[in-house]
């Protein structure tokens, strides 16, 4: 999938805004939101928050985790742990990008927050590269990837599954050259789809 589609999915997350207008409840297909009361915080999907912000109809409330101390802890934890740590939410990168992009003036110390989120992303990506390398070298056809967010998974998408597919093909090839086995029929099937 394209990164913008992951972003599209991430836009369904609920965030908090403070509207500067008052309105009744609105009944959307994805749920009901409101009533809007000027100055009172309320929850809406991220796409709606960004839209209202662009129309200058609201202020965004930074999510709990979008705080320097919290993020500093996450970063330290991520550095210390051999494994991936659990992120504050499944779409932290999308949320950060959209909120900081559309409403950086609503977020205290936005520039520093941006940097630290980028740091966390970099640490995780380098971990991901290392574990992919290890997985390929061990000739694995299976891996467990808890706590990786969708955007992170998607960033390795053409590469990792394709490499594992190739590895599988090579394994089948070596197997095929040894005396015929029951499994060769499945190979010719996958092979034919590759060729055309």
């Amino acid at each position, binding site marked *: *999938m394209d990164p913008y*589609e992951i972003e*599209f*999915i991430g*836009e*369904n997350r609920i965030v908090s805004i403070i509207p500067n*207008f008052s*309105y009744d409840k*609105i009944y*959307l*297909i*994805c*749920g009901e939101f409101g009533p809007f009361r000027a100055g009172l915080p309320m929850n809406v999907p991220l*796409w*709606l928050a960004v*839209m209202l912000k662009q*129309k200058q*109809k609201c202020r965004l409330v930074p999510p709990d985790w979008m705080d320097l101390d919290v993020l500093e802890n996450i970063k330290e934890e991520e550095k210390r742990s051999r494994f991936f740590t659990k992120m504050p939410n499944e779409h932290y990168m999308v949320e950060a990008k959209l909120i900081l992009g559309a409403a950086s003036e609503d977020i205290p110390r936005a520039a520093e927050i941006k940097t630290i989120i980028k740091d966390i992303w970099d640490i995780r990506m380098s971990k991901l590269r290392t574990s992919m390398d290890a997985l390929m070298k061990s000739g694995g*056809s*299976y*891996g*467990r*990837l*808890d*706590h*990786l967010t*969708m955007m992170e*998974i998607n960033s390795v*998408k053409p590469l*990792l*599954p394709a490499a*594992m*597919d190739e590895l*599988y093909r090579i*394994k*089948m090839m*070596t*197997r095929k050259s040894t005396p015929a086995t029951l*499994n060769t029929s*499945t190979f010719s*099937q*996958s092979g*034919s*789809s*590759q060729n*055309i």
Partner: protein
Amino acid sequence: MSTEDLDLSADEEEITAETVLKTLQSAWQNERLAPEILPHRNDMVECMLGQIQHMERNINKLPKTDLRACIHKMELNRIKYIICNYLKTRLNKIEKYCISIVNEERQRTESGTNYLTPSEFRYAQEYLVNMENHLKNTVLNHVPGRMQTFEHNKMAVYPNLQSHVFLKANSTVNGIVLEDMIGDQDEEIDLEEDSQHILQYKPIADLVKNGKVQLV
């Protein structure tokens, strides 16, 4: 299909538009990421299209500059995107794996477990006929007689079910058997709820179809 339909109509009142949208979104995501074509969710698509029409009629009653109209329109556009992309993805697969899908679908229709909607099936068959005619007109009719037959089986393209996919388990599933190609040592793994994995599509194909796992 018939029993599923009955179940659906029985508790139709209880299904909210929100649930339909969630189901549709996960069907879209699975369809995008699975190598083969998945059972259709036409019930959900039809239901959502009905909702959209209903909503659009209401929006038209609002003044154009009304903020609510803008919000509703934006939401409808998002939903339409999901539906269009979902249907297009299916059509792409139908075109790509046309012969194999038509063959398999014929068997599935007999047992009543069809994956395609009637219109998709018609599209697949017409596509196949058109492709065959085209190839005959451009090439086969101009080569010596005994080479003129159009061999379906040799032309068939199959989805690579051995390709690797990422998934997230919606509920715990134990005892997935992963075949080991070299050592003949099959490995068994458990998918705990909410855990994420990368593995071959084939052993988990049924779990995608019955909603136990979500492709990511």
